[in-house]
């Protein structure tokens, strides 16, 4: 991926991520989060991970955020009124963010793959990277057990939701 495109989409992702927090209107926040997800998907495309990018859009932007928006609209949340700035909370939040960035920096410094240059999109022209197959084989061979466990977990959650909603109806 061209560095220009990378910085463009990275800036898009980060800016709209900040906008999610800064916006007073919940609907605007949710939509900013959608744009942020789309930027993230573009970054995945830049890494030739088309499958992950498409799933990012399909699941997060297309389904999860639509439901979020749905709920926000149904609850008819009004824009937050401007409160007096709570200084300790601001400082605390900033510190947590800084600590996280520092931690990330330290980890990535020691991780050898992080020092390699970006894989270029055009270099893969000609040879096809079938990342769907890659993800599939990895999931069902190396990570088979965790995958099955997650499957059971989600099934349990689904049954739990059904039971809870049935009980409420009575």
């Amino acid at each position, binding site marked *: 991926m061209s560095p220009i495109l990378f910085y463009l989409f990275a800036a898009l992702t980060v800016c709209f991520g900040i906008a999610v927090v800064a916006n007073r209107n919940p609907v605007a926040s949710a939509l900013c989060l959608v744009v942020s997800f789309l930027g993230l998907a573009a970054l995945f495309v830049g890494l030739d991970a088309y*499958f992950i990018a498409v799933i990012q*859009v399909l699941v997060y*932007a297309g*389904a999860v955020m*639509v439901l979020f928006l*749905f709920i926000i*609209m149904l609850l008819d949340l009004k824009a937050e009124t401007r409160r007096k700035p709570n200084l300790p909370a601001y400082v605390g939040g900033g510190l947590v963010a800084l600590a996280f960035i520092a931690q990330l920096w330290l980890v990535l410094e020691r991780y050898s793959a992080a020092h390699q240059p970006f894989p270029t999109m*055009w270099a893969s022209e000609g040879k096809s990277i*079938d990342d*769907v197959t890659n993800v599939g084989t990895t999931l069902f061979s190396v990570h088979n057990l965790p995958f099955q466990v997650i499957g059971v977990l989600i099934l349990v959650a689904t049954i739990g939701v059904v039971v809870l909603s049935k009980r409420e109806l009575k």
Partner: protein
Amino acid sequence: MDYLYSTDFLFLVGTSLAKTIFLIFLVVLPMVSYTVYAERRVSALIQDRVGPNRTGFPLSLIGGKDWSPFLGGLGQPIADAVKFLLKEDFVPAHVNKFYFWIAPTLSMMPAIVTLAVIPFGSTILGVPMVVANINVGVLFMFAISSVSVYGIVLAGWSSNSKYPFLGGIRSTSQMISYELGMGLSAVPVLLIAGSTSLPQIVEYQIHNGWMMLPYSNGHLGWGKTLLWIPIIISFVTFTISMFAETNRLPFDLPESETELVAGYHTEYSSMKFALFFLGEYTAMIAGSALIVVLYLGGYHVPGIPNGDAQGGIPILRHVPGLIWGIVNITAFFAKVAALLFVFIWVRWTLPRFRYDQLMKLGWLYIFEIALVNIFLTAGILACTH
């Protein structure tokens, strides 16, 4: 970085642009406007009426009416467009302006973007006729069409009025429900073709017969005949989900006139309304194109060679490939047009579902049938291979 300045890259950019312009401005947008015209004419013919038969070429009363009672009115889409442009663009005072403006574009754009991965022809002068050949084409279609729900939701919410709001809510829940069914319905095709790339699915169908016509390559086989059963089930559930996903009758609850005035676009007028309209019909074309690619062999016609003059009946290979490339594109859009006719035909036959029936159909039937169908397909594939 060198690649960015090479002639290969410029060639890629140039051909992609040419393909995009051809696809959107020369094929899809005219097709959209004439689908609207076809909608009106076919509905009229089905209901024993005549339909718009006046606006001919030149744009006058004379038209084509005298020489053929069924070809007059071909200028109607142009008249419609002029009308949309000249009407007052009214924005009610109570709307949320920013989202009210952005919603029509958000419903139009995803529909156009999905067209990027559709292989609408084989090759012309060696250039493959698909704008973006990515290996997750099917998923890309689903992902982008799932984004198109934002336009409708925002239109319903920002209009700040009860009918659009109800329409928007209905549309959201309907699209989320049927997306699952649609995705799962398509899985058997992906299993059989062994790929999620749309050009490769078409390639598979050229060599092994169309999904819906397994003997079209001239070879009989038990495995194929067995696989026909899940494919037909998958085709039916996929088509039903596609109707629901594009908000077509019998699933047009988001804009049901009898109870919601016009649903999410009640407050819209002029070109903003036209954008919703165009978005809906573009989505219909994209959906039909996906059905053609997945089940009806894409651009392939049995016996006709591809754009490199390969395959097909040997004697036809002497004709230059360029001609066959054009024939392939024509075949593809002919298939799409035939499917659009079916869309219209169904619309003017079936009454609207009730909302609980719609949800029940989506969650209790389509979803389950599609799920079982995947196992059936996998079983048959495991047994026959």
